[in-house]
C-alpha cells in the first residue's frame, strides 16, 4: 500500500470491498441503515465495474482499446464517461505542462516487456465533447489512463453515493487514491488518512492522491525521454477531486521543485514528498497553506 493505513474518524462506518482495475476498492459509509449502506456500496461498485469495462486498455472490447486502435481518419462515438475522462486527461496534461501524459500505453508496454502491436509513430486524437465523437489524426494513439482512471472512478462513485443519499463516505482505491464525501447530513465531517511517516491529514470533501515507486518500482514513464523516470519514492497531492489528485501526483513525480511549486500554487494544491531512500515526508506546500479550507482541514503529527 503506497500511502496510507486509513484511520476512520468515525468507527461506526461500515466498510465494503471490491476488486477492479487490478487493485482493491473500499467504500466506508456512515449511515444508520445497514441495508441501505450495503446496497448503496453495491451500486457504486457496479458503476466501478462499468467504468473499468469502458476504460481498461487490457480489455480488447473496452472503448479505450477501440479508441487506441483508431486509424487516421476514423471516427468513434464515445460513451459519455469515456469522453469525460479523456477530456479531463487532456486538461490535466495542459495543467501539468505535459508531465501528465495519458498516451504512454506503448511505452508502458515496452517497459513491462509486453510486445506491442500498436503503431510506433505517435499520433493525435481529436476530442469533441459536444458531439461526443473522437477522430484519429496521423497515427493511432495508445491510451493508458492508469494514472487518472482510479481517481476518476472514485469521483463518479462519490457522486452516485451522494445522489443516493449517503451523507458521509470515504472511498479508497488501492491505498493510493482517496476521496471523501461529506454533506450537511454528515455527523462527523472529516476523515483522517495517515501517510507513510505516521503523519495524519484530515479531509473533508477532498481527495488525496499518491504516486510512488516504493511498491511497483520505477514504472512512471517520463513523457519526454519515454523511459522510466528517475523520481522520488512518493509524492502526495491533496486536491478537490481524486482524478486531479491522481494526475497531479503522477506529474509531480517527474517535475522540478520550481515547477511543482508553480503548479501547486496556481491550482491550490497541497503537496508532500518522500525523497528517494528517505523515511521522512516533506511538505512542499504544507496543509496550513492550503487555500480550500472550506472542504479541507489538517492535522499533522
Amino acid at each position, binding site marked *: 500500500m503506497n500511502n496510507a493505513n486509513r484511520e476512520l474518524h468515525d468507527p461506526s462506518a461500515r466498510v465494503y470491498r471490491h476488486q477492479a482495475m487490478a487493485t482493491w476498492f473500499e467504500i466506508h459509509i456512515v449511515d444508520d441503515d445497514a441495508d441501505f449502506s*450495503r446496497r448503496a456500496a453495491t*451500486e457504486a461498485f457496479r458503476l466501478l465495474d462499468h467504468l473499468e469495462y469502458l476504460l481498461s486498455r487490457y*480489455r480488447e472490447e473496452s472503448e479505450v482499446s477501440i479508441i487506441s486502435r483508431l486509424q487516421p481518419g476514423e471516427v468513434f462515438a464515445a460513451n459519455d464517461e469515456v469522453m469525460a475522462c479523456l477530456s479531463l486527461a487532456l486538461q490535466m*496534461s495542459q495543467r501539468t505542462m505535459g508531465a501528465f501524459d495519458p*498516451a504512454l500505453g506503448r511505452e508502458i508496454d515496452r517497459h513491462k516487456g509486453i510486445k506491442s502491436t500498436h503503431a510506433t509513430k505517435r499520433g493525435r486524437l481529436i*476530442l469533441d465533447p459536444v458531439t461526443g465523437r473522437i477522430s484519429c489524426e496521423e497515427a493511432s494513439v495508445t491510451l493508458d489512463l492508469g494514472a487518472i482512471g482510479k481517481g476518476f472512478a472514485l469521483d463518479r462513485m462519490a457522486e452516485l453515493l451522494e445522489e443516493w443519499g449517503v451523507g458521509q463516505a470515504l472511498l479508497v482505491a488501492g491505498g493510493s487514491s482517496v476521496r471523501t464525501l461529506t454533506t450537511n447530513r454528515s455527523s462527523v465531517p472529516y476523515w483522517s488518512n495517515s501517510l507513510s511517516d505516521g503523519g495524519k491529514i484530515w479531509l473533508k470533501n477532498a481527495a488525496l492522491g499518491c504516486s510512488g515507486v516504493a511498491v511497483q518500482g520505477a514504472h512512471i514513464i517520463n513523457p519526454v525521454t519515454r523511459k522510466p523516470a528517475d523520481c*522520488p519514492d512518493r509524492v502526495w497531492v491533496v486536491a478537490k477531486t481524486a482524478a486531479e489528485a491522481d494526475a497531479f501526483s503522477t506529474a509531480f513525480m517527474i517535475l522540478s521543485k520550481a515547477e511543482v511549486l508553480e503548479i501547486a500554487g496556481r491550482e491550490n494544491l497541497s503537496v508532500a514528498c518522500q525523497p528517494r531512500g*528517505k523515511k521522512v515526508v516533506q511538505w512542499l506546500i504544507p496543509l496550513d497553506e492550503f487555500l480550500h479550507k472550506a472542504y479541507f482541514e489538517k492535522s499533522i503529527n
Partner: protein
Amino acid sequence: MKSFSFFPEQPNRRTFLKMTAGAGAALAIGNIPAFGINPEKNDALNIAIVGCGAQGRVLLEACMKIPNIRFVAVCDIWDYAREYARRFLKKAGHEPNAYTDIEDMLSKEKNLDGVLVAVPDFWHAPHTNMCLKAGINVYCEKMMSNTIAGARSMVETMKSTGKLLQIGHQRRSNPRYLVTLNRLIKEANITGRITAANAQWNRAVADDLGWPKNAALPAETLQKYGFKDMHVFRNWRWFREYGGGPLSDLGAHQIDIFNWFFGTAPTNVIGNGGVDYYTTHEWFDQAMVVYEYQTAQGVARAFYQVLTTTSAGGGYFEEFMGVDGTIKISENPNITSIFREARAPSWEPFIRQKLLAESIDTSAPKSSAKVDARETAALAAYKLPIVLNKAIHQPHLENFFAAIRGEAKLNCPADEAFASEIAVFKAIEAVDTKKLVTLTPEEAHV
C-alpha cells in the same frame, strides 16, 4: 523544512510546454460533426424505449453510436430511471417525451418505427404484443417471457401482424461469433465433428439491489404494475413470478449459442441446482444441466453451469469440442481461444487465410518432422483474429434497424429464439424435478 529533493535530471518546462502545445500533444479538442439526422436521406427511425433500468441503459448507450436514430419517447414506471434516460438522451441531442405507462405512450406516439423493450421479463409479452398490434416493430430483451405461453404468444403476434420482432440474443450479430460459426466450423470444419459443448457463467456473490433514499415508488404504483414491494421491484430477477432466475437471465444467452451452433434444439436435458446460498431468493443460485443434441453429425452433449456464488472458473464462455479442435469463445475476447488436437490436419492454411491468428504457445512444435525430446507439450493454441470495434450490443441493434429499413433480415427473429426459450424452460423443469426432461421438435416451434 528540509529542502524538497526531486530528482536531478528532470525535463525543463520549455520541453513540456512544447509537448502540450505542439505536435507532441496526443489529445486535442476540435469540432467533429455529430451523427445527427441525415436530412437528405430522410430515413431516420423514430424509436422509443420501454424500461430504462440497467439493461435499458446498455441499449441506449449502444444506440448512441448508431446514426439516423431519433429517440422520441422513453417509458418507465420508475421516475428515477425514466429521468436518467431522458436526461441522457437530451444530452445527446434527442428530445424524447417521457411516459410512465406504455398504453399512454402508444396512444400519443403515432410515428414510432420501433420500440426497444427492456422491462422485467413478465412484462415482455404484454408490452411486445401491444406494440406489434399497434403496428410497431419490436426489439425485446431475452428471455422472451417468464412463461412458455407468453413466449408463444409473441411469436404468434409477430406472425399475425407481419411486424419485426428481434430478441436480444446479441451474440447472433457479433462478427466474432458469426466468423466462428460460419467460417471456422461450417466452412473450414477446423473442429471436426463436435461431440461436446461446455458453457458457463460464474459470478461472485452480490448483494440485492437497493434504491436511493427518497426514490421509492408509491405502494399503489407498485401494485398497479404487479410488484409486491420496492425490494421485489428492484430484485425481480430472483422471484419466480417475474423472471426465470440465473438459468434464464444468464443461461439463455449461452443455451441459445448451443442451439445456434448445433443448428437444432436439444432432445432432452437433466439438471441439478437449488437455492443453496441466498436466503431471500426464490430462484436457484446455482444450476448445472446437461443437454443432449441430435446434430447432423451425430449425438453431442452440452453441459451448462451458472453459479451466482463464485466468480471462479474463468468467467463466462461457450466451448465447442470437436475431435480435431476446440473453440472457446466469449463476448470477452481475452477468454477466447482455439486449441488444435495433435491428430488434426495442419491449420497453417487457415492462418494464411487470416481465419486464425498465430499460436499463443509457440513452444509447441508445429510439425512432427523430427523427434524432439522435451517437457510435455501443451495443446497448440490459436487466437480468433476478429476484433469487434463496437459496443457488444451495437451490431444486434444495427441489424434490427437495418431490418426495419428493409436492408437486412433479422439475426434473431422471435420464432428462432423460441427454440432456445423452450430449451431454457426445460432446463428449469429438469432442475426443479431432478428428472430427465424431453423436448420434441414440435414443442420447439410455434
